């Protein structure tokens, strides 16, 4: 069991989400940085979609009541086991009674605690993710609070887990993701349905910087910047919506839908962020400057494939090392 000792608001159990139910109004939810969850699980030999704890407010402190293997991925900052600093993106073993503390990150905004075999909360509609709006999934359909206890899935294999580490994706996948330029996060997107209706403002959408406003959360990021408007008012009927879509409400300041995206919407859409770049937005802090870069389907596909290969490679290598160490032991 893992006992929550201290938590800020809105820390939740998340996996890779609950797609497939948008047609009955249920958001997909899932980790804001799915790549961190996949890599943590790959290191531990878990299924890629095993449930983890998403920490977005700090400090976050847990006590292990049984021995457990865990990895902390995502945002970069101090993480301590019994006050001793830990290496990130690396498997550690906690003994019963050990206390893990994750402090305010220096870089990035969300840390993930993945545990051997995954966090065991009930599967609701195919997922262990918490949906805050619907109030179900995860731990009792709500954010974690001090005093809560989470079970860990029982071990399915006997292979020992050692201190296997992986370089963080910003380095390991350097060739796939553009570096920050002038303190600005470059976010790739394809033009969406109503792009042409914005006329000259459509060009400005791509060239001017935007800032992630304080009205941003797991549902969506509101951007601040010089407003953009369609040349004539656009009246849309409600239609399905997915994370990454960039909608422009009447105020002219765009909203990027994120993991808890509503399932339906009607604002005109100017662009859709490519799926491979969503985890980078999930790690972007309020106040971050971003700029959209016009992308293509071919590029979006290439990014997804490169990420999939990377995760598969980590998974394979970790497994190989575990087997080799198992033989030696």
């Amino acid at each position, binding site marked *: 069991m893992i006992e929550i000792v201290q938590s800020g608001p809105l820390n939740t159990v998340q996996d890779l989400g609950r797609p497939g*139910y948008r047609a009955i*109004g*249920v958001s997909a939810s899932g980790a804001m940085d799915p790549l961190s969850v996949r890599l943590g699980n790959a290191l531990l030999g878990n299924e890629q979609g095993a449930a983890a704890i998403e920490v977005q407010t700090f400090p976050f402190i847990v006590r292990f009541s049984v021995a457990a293997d865990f990895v902390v991925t995502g945002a970069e900052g101090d993480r301590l086991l019994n006050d001793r600093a830990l290496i990130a993106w690396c498997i550690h073993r906690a003994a019963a009674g050990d206390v893990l503390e994750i402090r305010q990150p220096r870089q990035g905004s969300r840390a993930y605690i993945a545990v051997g075999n995954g966090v065991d909360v009930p599967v609701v509609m195919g997922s262990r993710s918490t949906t805050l*709006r*619907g109030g179900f999934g995860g731990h009792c359909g709500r954010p974690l609070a001090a005093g809560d206890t989470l079970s860990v899935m029982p071990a399915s294999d006997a292979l020992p887990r050692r201190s296997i580490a992986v370089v963080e994706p910003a380095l390991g996948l350097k060739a796939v993701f553009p570096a920050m330029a002038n303190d600005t996060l470059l976010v790739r997107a394809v*033009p969406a349905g109503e792009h042409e209706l914005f006329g000259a403002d459509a060009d400005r959408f791509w060239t001017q910087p935007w800032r992630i406003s304080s009205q941003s959360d797991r549902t969506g990021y509101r951007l601040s910047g010089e407003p953009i408007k369609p040349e004539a008012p656009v009246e849309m009927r409600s239609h*399905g919506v997915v994370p990454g879509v960039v909608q422009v409400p009447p105020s002219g300041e765009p909203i990027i839908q994120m993991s808890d995206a509503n399932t339906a919407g009607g604002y005109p859409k100017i662009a859709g962020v490519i799926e491979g770049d969503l985890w980078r937005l999930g790690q972007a802090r309020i106040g971050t400057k971003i700029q959209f870069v016009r992308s293509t389907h071919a590029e979006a596909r290439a990014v997804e494939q490169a990420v999939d290969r990377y995760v598969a490679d980590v998974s394979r290598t970790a497994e190989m090392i575990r087997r080799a160490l198992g033989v030696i032991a």
Partner: protein
Amino acid sequence: MTIQPSHHSSCRDDVSAFRKGARISFIGARSFLLEAPGEFDLPSQRLIWAVTGLVAAWDEVAEVIPGMTNLLAILKETPEDPRLFVERLETAWLEARSVDLKGKIIEIPVVYGGEYAADLAALCEHSGLSDREVVRRHHEASYRVFALGSAPGFGYLHGLDPSIYMPRKTVPSLRMERGCVTIGGMQTGVAMLTGPNGWNSIGHADLQMFDPTSSTPALMAPGDVVRFLPERIEL
């Protein structure tokens, strides 16, 4: 980016001979929105239901979300070139035969007026009708569930009497209770979550319409017929 199909209704069968092309656009690299041309009405929605059924069976499709005279198809993988899928969708639209879903009948007991009907007075003013008349026109109509969305289990209902259409509020209510029976533009529905809501409330229903632990979590499904039964009218 929009791709307008260039089909002319030359020699297709009589079903599609006069059907206008749908508008197909991107909302993400692996999500495609198909919008029916023409009115917001049952014939358009029947075609959307038909195309939804076809597209949902395609191998490359992960999920199809019918909307209001539109549908969103989400692919399992981002295609290298989107044009092939756009063409496939266009063809499906032009060749689909309208279906009328054989839905079930759902009867929802409603307390009209009373403490939850915060916007009934405004609706009377907007329509020029008495509160009794507004309520009568609402519960005497029979509605079709066009699609679900926005909140778990929320059904968009079509069939509202045009005399009681009422635009959404420009400033939403900050906290509307779950169960409020509401009117938003030409649609009506029952609020599924307590929270901010821009629709106009005229009553309240207790019926539980969503259960995440059930194998069929949502009570409503597209095509269902909904009737509101006045349990009590408090005016």
